[in-house]
């Protein structure tokens, strides 16, 4: 077992007495005060997350854009530089290597942000695909730190604290900005369903961002609320809703896959077949009729037969309702299908619903 790593913001977490746990090889803050308070700070005001554990991989070289187009499910060739695009890298069989953000820097430079738990796997897989392309793959994960500033007041707060006006930075675009003489890459992206920004910088510079925002009253939020927030916005998490056992079609994420528009990408053939034949399984929303908490791994039944399993579930903080996402057999995936979730010794009744648990509050213009 390798040693547990610490992010450059670790001293702040211990000083705030955060509850720390190992996540993806890093000692990360789960919660500082309560998950509810941190969750609501992001929904109603502004919160910030240390997400320095996330992976940053740079694709450099003459074929950078062409190469990323080949390993990525979503459309990038027609998008302007400065755009961020969400999508997947797939195995030939259509299952998911990882979900990622693609930052289109220029023809010869594309910046990939991948899941912390998948950095080594992704890097090795990407390098394996480079044959025939003039590209160099550089894993910069150890060089970069990242703070996500999320919530309806994120833009105002950043302007107030740093004098930086991000009102012109539109949804899913990025730029390089100077703060206090240091350069940061900032995108209008996030993982909470709220407006907000992700700020990437060097391990030396990021503590300045965190400290100033903290002094200005931005609520530090741990990975606990990061999960409850992304869940309510029905954003998938690798290892839960998506994995190397499921395709983006079954996961209900077809809008990030351009099988018709793109000439080729790894896994396209398998997805075309799946679309033609229909998926056996689907990720759906589930709501329970009575108070109980459907958690990951709990079985889902239709009548006496197990038809699936919960991938993520909570007593939703914003909605105060027991809701979940579940991977279930196609025959039980229709809206309003009556199901039961096995919770300890009880069979708790519920129904299949859409995953639009909460309206997303993105600033899209």
């Amino acid at each position, binding site marked *: 077992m390798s040693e547990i790593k610490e992010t450059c913001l670790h001293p702040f977490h211990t000083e705030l007495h955060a*509850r720390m746990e190992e996540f993806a090889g890093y000692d990360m803050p*789960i*919660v500082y005060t*309560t*998950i*509810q308070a941190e969750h609501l700070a992001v929904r109603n005001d502004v919160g910030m997350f240390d997400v320095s554990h996330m992976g940053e991989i740079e694709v450099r070289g003459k074929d950078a854009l062409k190469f990323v187009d080949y390993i990525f499910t979503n459309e990038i060739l027609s998008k302007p530089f400065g755009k961020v695009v969400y999508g997947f890298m797939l195995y030939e069989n259509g299952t998911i290597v990882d979900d990622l953000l693609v930052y289109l820097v220029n023809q010869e430079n594309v910046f990939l942000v991948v899941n912390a738990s998948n950095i080594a796997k992704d890097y090795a897989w990407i390098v394996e695909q480079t044959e025939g392309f003039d590209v160099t793959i550089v894993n910069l994960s150890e060089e970069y730190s990242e703070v996500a500033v999320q919530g309806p007041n994120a833009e105002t707060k950043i302007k107030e604290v740093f004098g930086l006006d991000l009102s012109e930075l539109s949804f899913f675009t990025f730029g390089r900005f100077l703060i206090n003489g240091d350069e940061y890459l900032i995108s209008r992206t996030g993982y909470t369903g709220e407006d907000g920004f992700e700020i990437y910088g060097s391990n030396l510079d990021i503590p300045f961002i965190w400290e100033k925002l903290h002094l200005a009253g931005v609520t530090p939020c741990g990975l*606990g609320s990061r*999960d*409850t927030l992304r869940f309510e916005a029905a954003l998938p998490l690798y290892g839960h809703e998506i994995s190397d056992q499921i395709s983006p079609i079954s996961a209900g994420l077809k809008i990030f896959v351009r099988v018709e528009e793109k000439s080729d990408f790894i896994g396209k053939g398998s997805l075309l077949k799946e679309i033609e034949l229909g998926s056996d399984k689907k990720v759906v929303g589930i709501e329970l009729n009575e*108070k*109980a*908490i459907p*958690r990951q791994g709990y079985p889902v039944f239709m009548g006496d037969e197990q038809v699936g399993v919960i991938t993520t579930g*909570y*007593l939703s*903080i914003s909605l105060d309702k027991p809701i979940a996402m579940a991977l279930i057999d196609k025959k039980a995936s229709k809206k309003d299908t009556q199901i039961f979730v096995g*919770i*300890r010794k009880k069979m708790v009744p519920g129904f299949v619903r859409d995953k639009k648990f909460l309206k997303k509050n993105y600033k899209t213009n």
Partner: protein
Amino acid sequence: MSKIVEGLLYSESHEWVKVESEGIVIVGITDYAQSQLGSVVFVDLPEAGTKLQREVEFGAVESVKAASDLISPVSGEIMEINEDLIGEPELVNEDAFSAWMLKVELSKPEELDKLMSAAQYAELIK
């Protein structure tokens, strides 16, 4: 520092037991247990009339992130549950020793001898 109340009996799975009268006890979870859980959002209790067995799970207390089993420190039959906890699970965090969960009629009163004293429990969570 977790609070411990003198005069109660304690289990290794962090439940407290208060002897109400001959053969009747009240059961809850300790302050230490609630502090480990974080904010309690749901308490899942069985119905009155349910038979309990010592060291067997009877319900769960759930935080946002996780469900923790409740383990019965005694054998017997549930006479009453604390309905207040269904609507206000946060009472467990506010005062774990007031937020009782079950009133139980013991079937094996001698089992009380197997539980710890406040001093022994303090040693356990030290």
